[in-house]
């Protein structure tokens, strides 16, 4: 019953699925002969922050990309607020891995944030003052307002990550999916990002992030989703982020001492 336990401890009925911002059923994705993600169910709680956790190559990013429709799954469904993903794309904002783009691309910081307004501006629509000021406000929210006219190649890794977050904020969505938002960023950026994510949660938005640092899971997130090709566990940090589930997720890759230490930290 672990996987369907809500924060109140009540079991989740199928009716509640319609309320889930992001519900995945039977998702299988394969790049070659071996599946990267196998028959995974996931039910994200509204207004929560969920960490997707697992070893390298466990299918974390793949799960996220399939949830976004960027990767076509072999099978399975993705529902956003109870409706098919294709009808609900505008509800989802996305922060890809920083390393997935070429930062030498000839463009400025503000132009990247404006890309997040594409749905509002449209194919040929005029970019109005209100669009620019919205993009500026998103930059200010991540503390990058002074960098609007900078060439993106001149930014540090942490600054690039903040620009990506600002672009996602410009999408003004209900769900924020982030792929390793803290990878290779400085401490100040990590703090800035987590405070933005927490303010999103305070606004009732839902945050799902692929996360690497097991030490900060309990501090940053409400819920965890442990995956190693198959789902290992899903639920609140208290219920699902335990020594047993971590051992099951990481196997021999995570030293037992480390697991014990984490379990100790968790109380």
């Amino acid at each position, binding site marked *: 019953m672990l996987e369907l336990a809500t924060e109140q401890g009540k079991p989740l009925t199928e009716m509640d699925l319609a309320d889930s911002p992001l519900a995945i059923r039977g998702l299988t994705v394969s790049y070659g002969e071996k599946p990267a993600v196998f028959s995974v169910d996931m039910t994200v709680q509204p207004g929560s922050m969920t960490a997707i956790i697992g070893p390298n190559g466990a299918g974390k990013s793949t799960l996220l990309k399939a949830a976004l429709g960027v990767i076509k799954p072999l099978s399975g469904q993705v529902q956003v607020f109870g409706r098919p993903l294709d009808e609900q794309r505008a509800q989802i904002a996305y922060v*890809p891995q920083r390393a997935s*783009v070429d930062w030498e*691309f000839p463009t400025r910081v503000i132009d990247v944030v404006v890309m997040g307004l594409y749905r509002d501006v449209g*194919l*040929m629509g005029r970019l109005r003052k209100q669009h620019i000021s919205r993009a500026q406000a998103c930059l200010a929210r991540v503390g990058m307002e002074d960098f609007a006219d900078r060439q993106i*190649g001149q930014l540090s890794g942490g600054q690039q990550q903040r620009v990506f977050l600002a*672009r996602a904020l410009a999408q003004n969505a209900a769900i924020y999916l982030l792929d390793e938002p803290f990878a290779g960023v400085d401490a100040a950026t990590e703090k800035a990002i987590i405070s933005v994510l927490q303010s999103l949660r305070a606004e009732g938005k839902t945050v799902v992030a692929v996360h690497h640092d097991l030490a900060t899971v309990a501090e940053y997130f409400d819920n965890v989703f442990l995956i190693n090709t198959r789902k290992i566990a899903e639920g609140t940090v208290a219920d699902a982020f335990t020594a047993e589930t971590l051992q099951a997720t990481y196997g021999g890759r995570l030293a037992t001492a480390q697991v014990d230490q984490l379990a100790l930290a968790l109380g």
Partner: protein
Amino acid sequence: MSGEEFVPLSLTPLLIGIFAAVACALPGNFLVLRRQALIGDAISHVVLPGIVVAFLITGAISAWPMMLGAAGAAVLAVVLIELIRRMGKIEPGAAMGVVFTSMFAFGVLILEVSDTSTVHLDVEHALYGNLESLIWLDATGWASLFDIDALRYLPPELPRMAVTLVVVLAFTLVLWRPLKIATFDEGFAQTMGIRTEALGMGLVIIAAIAAVAAFDAVGSIIVIAMFICPPAAARLMTDSLEAQVMWSVIFAITAAITGYVLAGYGPLWLGGNDAVSAAGMIATMSGVILALAALFGPRRSRTGAPSEA
């Protein structure tokens, strides 16, 4: 040079050269940023078998069947490249290399074994085209531009290249935003509902149309040069995509004009008496512009370049 001499002899080849250069340079900007610049090279090679097959079917050198044959071959090549890239999961450069060398070789082979000796169809023609021959003998001066009778005898390559340029320009302007977003961040573009695969395919098809039209008018050497040199030089001038595209157009036009003039008069100035190939000289000038931009362009030092790249 007076209008009487310039309009019939130089205006049309010059315009055709300029239109071809700009039509190739525009999509070239995106191809260079997507690291697909070699696709221009690929297309200009694969049109050869298309043209030869079209000639074998129709038995005559006429523009439309050959354009269709070339376009068919280009589309076939683009589809093959995408298929090999996606199914073989290899980098695009390798897929292009495989496709365009084998299709070009196939074109040379059927050219050899089929009887094309009676017509002017050879590998040199495919490479350099014959820009200098695209003259407008019915023109008598600038006034001919308003003379319906004279306009009727414009070399057909000129309106064809002009239409091609308009199509390329329209594609670039209408799809500017999705092209920019998808070129920078394909995954993000997909989550915004942009159909990036269709867009990428559209871009290479537009590039193929530009390449085939330019190939017909000026040969493949200009196509290969113009897809890469003006955009690459433009990237060294600015950090804005909008400005980069502007610069690439300026560079393409500059290369076309200086190349054409130097090909016609350069050898005379140097004491020789024969003109050299205009197409070859235009391509050379685009290379010279790139070299100058690489040496003196304001953005030649890549400030944020990752050290591992």
